[in-house]
């Protein structure tokens, strides 16, 4: 759930999704779900010569399971915050944890009764 929350904070930002079949797609992250399925807008395929059929495609839905990497711009990530949230999730490993990142307070909000 932590990684899902991270991706939610990246919506409307540009990311590059590299698939397990080596296709790399750069676009604006429009939405993500708990399976880390991803919707991208304004997409551009990195190697268009090798994937000409993708040239006309403007947006796409990517099944989470076919993703190898997502490249993110480092300025969009608070690494200290991430590490703290990861430690907290690890402490509560036996609980299904639904940590919510609150944009207003820049805080990870845990469900009541945890951590």
């Amino acid at each position, binding site marked *: *759930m*932590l*990684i899902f929350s*991270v*991706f939610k904070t990246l919506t409307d930002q540009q990311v590059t999704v590299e698939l*397990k079949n080596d296709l790399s797609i750069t676009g604006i992250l429009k939405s993500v779900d708990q399976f*880390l399925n991803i919707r991208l807008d304004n997409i551009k395929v990195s190697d268009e010569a090798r994937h000409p059929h993708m040239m006309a495609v403007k947006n796409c839905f990517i099944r*989470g*399971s076919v*993703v*190898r*990497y*997502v*490249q*993110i*711009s*480092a300025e*969009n*990530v608070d*690494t200290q915050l*991430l*590490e703290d*949230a*990861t*430690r907290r*999730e*690890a402490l509560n*490993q036996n609980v299904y944890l639904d940590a919510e990142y609150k944009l207003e307070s820049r805080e990870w909000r845990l469900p009541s009764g945890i951590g």
Partner: protein
Amino acid sequence: MDPSSGIQEPFDLIRLSLSERVFVKLRGDRELTGILHAYDGHMNLILSDVEETIMIVDVEGAPDGRGTVNVAKRKMEMLFVRGDGVILVSPPSRT
């Protein structure tokens, strides 16, 4: 339990590597080094200052059967790695 290293379960090894540079071996003859900032129970990872190494075995032009290994490298500033591709994670040696 091993008393020398306070590790009770495998994920402790990963937790103790947060904010450290780790080595990650992936499916598809890929390796990464990067600074670990987040992980979850699937071994999804978020790393920064990443260098990826891809081993490409060139079978052609190698009649003895052992192809030459070409290595491709690239750098990425911040990277999410999907856990299902992870084979091994090695923290920096704690000496």
